[in-house]
């Protein structure tokens, strides 16, 4: 009897398979990788000559602001939004259930999903930074690259966990997709991704501070802002993002299901109708 293929080999196969899937869905490629680049070009065309004040009183050009922030946004799209969309689709199609009936351990299946999302995020961030360097005078300083890499990893890890948490809590594919977009777009506005509002109402600032996106964008921008001294580790923000990530892991592990939302509530629905019948 042959042994099972090794976990590393299977994880690589699953990662490859998820990346191939992503590439074969043009709309996913456009919204995840293309749209943020379009935004970078548009925002720079509109506001490129402004300068913003950073929290510590330094100056930051709009070009640096947008490139760093939109790079972080791309990473979040590729992980949080992508997983919260695709995982419930696979669940509703019955694909998760099919895999669960095979000898493949489910952690390898979901691990392949997550690693592929992180790799797509990496491609998106590299594309964004390349465009920033070539066209928008973005400064890459070697001394700050360790901070950029650590920030990226903590950010994508946490947002992947939050994407899985959303997929765990919202069962149907259509609701999960709507919820992911309803969360991420307003969040981007209050998190200084699209616009830097100096005199924003307090509630907007507070809202941005509660959630992890603003912290991620700022920590990532710091790594590309000349006025921030190297090594540019923004530890408080990183700790805050990681705490959200841990919350995401806890929720995902507690509530994740493999059954399609159409069939899982079969029991639940009959239970509900049974309850309705007894209360009538």
């Amino acid at each position, binding site marked *: *009897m*042959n*042994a*099972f*293929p090794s976990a590393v080999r*299977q994880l690589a*196969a699953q990662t490859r*398979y998820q990346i*191939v*899937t992503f590439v*074969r*869905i043009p709309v996913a490629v456009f919204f995840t990788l293309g749209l943020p680049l379009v935004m970078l070009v548009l925002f720079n065309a509109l506001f490129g000559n402004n300068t913003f004040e950073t929290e510590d009183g330094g100056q930051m050009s709009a070009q640096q602001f947008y490139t760093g922030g939109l790079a972080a946004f791309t990473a979040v799209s590729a992980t949080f939004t992508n997983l919260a969309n695709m995982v419930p689709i*696979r669940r509703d*199609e*019955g*694909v998760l*259930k*099919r895999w*669960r*009936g*095979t*000898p*493949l*351990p489910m952690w390898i299946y979901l691990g392949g999903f997550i690693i592929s999302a992180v790799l797509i995020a990496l491609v998106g961030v590299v594309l964004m930074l390349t465009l920033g360097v070539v066209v928008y005078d973005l400064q890459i300083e070697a001394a700050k690259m360790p901070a950029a890499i650590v920030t990226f990893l903590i950010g994508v890890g946490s947002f992947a966990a939050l994407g899985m948490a959303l997929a765990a809590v919202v069962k149907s594919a259509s609701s999960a997709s709507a919820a992911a977009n309803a969360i991420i777009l307003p969040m981007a506005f209050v998190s200084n991704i699209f616009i830097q509002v100096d005199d924003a109402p307090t509630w907007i600032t507070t809202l941005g501070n509660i959630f992890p996106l603003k912290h991620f964008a700022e920590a990532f921008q710091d790594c590309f802002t000349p006025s921030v001294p190297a090594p540019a580790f923004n530890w408080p923000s990183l700790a805050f993002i990681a705490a959200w990530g841990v919350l995401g892991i806890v929720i995902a592990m507690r509530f994740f299901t493999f*059954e399609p939302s159409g*069939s899982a509530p*079969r*029991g*639940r629905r*009959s*239970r509900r109708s*049974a*309850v309705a019948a*007894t209360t009538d």
Partner: protein
Amino acid sequence: MTVVAVTDLHKHYGPVRAVDGLTFAIGAGEVYALLGSNGAGKSTAVEILEGHRTATSGTVEVLGVDPAHAGRDFRDRIGIVLQSSGVESEFTVREVIELYGGCYRNPRPLDQVVALVGLEEKVDARVGSLSGGQRRRVDLALGIVGRPELLFLDEPTTGFDPSARRRSWDLIESLGDDGTTVLLTTHYLDEAEHLADRVGVLSRGQLIAEGSPGELINQVSGTMVSFMLPDSVHPDAAAATFGELLGVDIRLSGRLVEANIEQPTAAVHRITGWAIESGVELDSLSVSRVSLEEVYLSLTDSDVANDGEAAP
């Protein structure tokens, strides 16, 4: 050797008893069909055997282990064809077979799998471009790619055209001949009659009859006489008119009149005599041995009738 042993299995959802005291066993190499209408509890029972659901109570042993706590060794030895489980539509048939085959210890080669399910011409087509019947064959392919000892087939031919159905039957028969144990659920009686070594009739979560198709048919004696209701007889009057002529209660489904008759010769004589006198033609008149369908209907009718009496 017993491959599946189920004893007093229950699965309750609140007050709803989807499976209600099910007991049966399947031997190695057997093709066993669980037959029942929609909602009889077939899929729930099978999903417990597959390890997808946990039982409320009762004991279940599949390939010597409890599927609720079984690991990948167990899943390496079974193949599952679920009722409605998607396949990644962005991939080609070749890619999904290789992808899924890659997680078994000893997968069947691609060529053999596509030949078995008859998808040779579609091997490089995307799953998303296939017809419903072809996708079902992909389901079958993924069920057998790991060389299972036990194959679960949950309504494998629902939605097939007749020729695709025949081909699937041939495949399932050839798997059975190879020594694969097959647990099949179906609501098609001809499918159970054609494929199964033994049939368990499931109603309201319980087995109400079990045996080979021949044994089940022998439980119901008689001969089926059927014909189309003539235009001259109103459907409301059919029961009285033909019931009297045939000497038994008739069943009317649409315009089809059916009756199970112990001594058909005289009854057929009476009814054809009546037809000639009345100057009507009895379209599609047929006299045949009872089929599994008769057995099934008589079993489930009496089950429903008993239930009706029990209700307040």
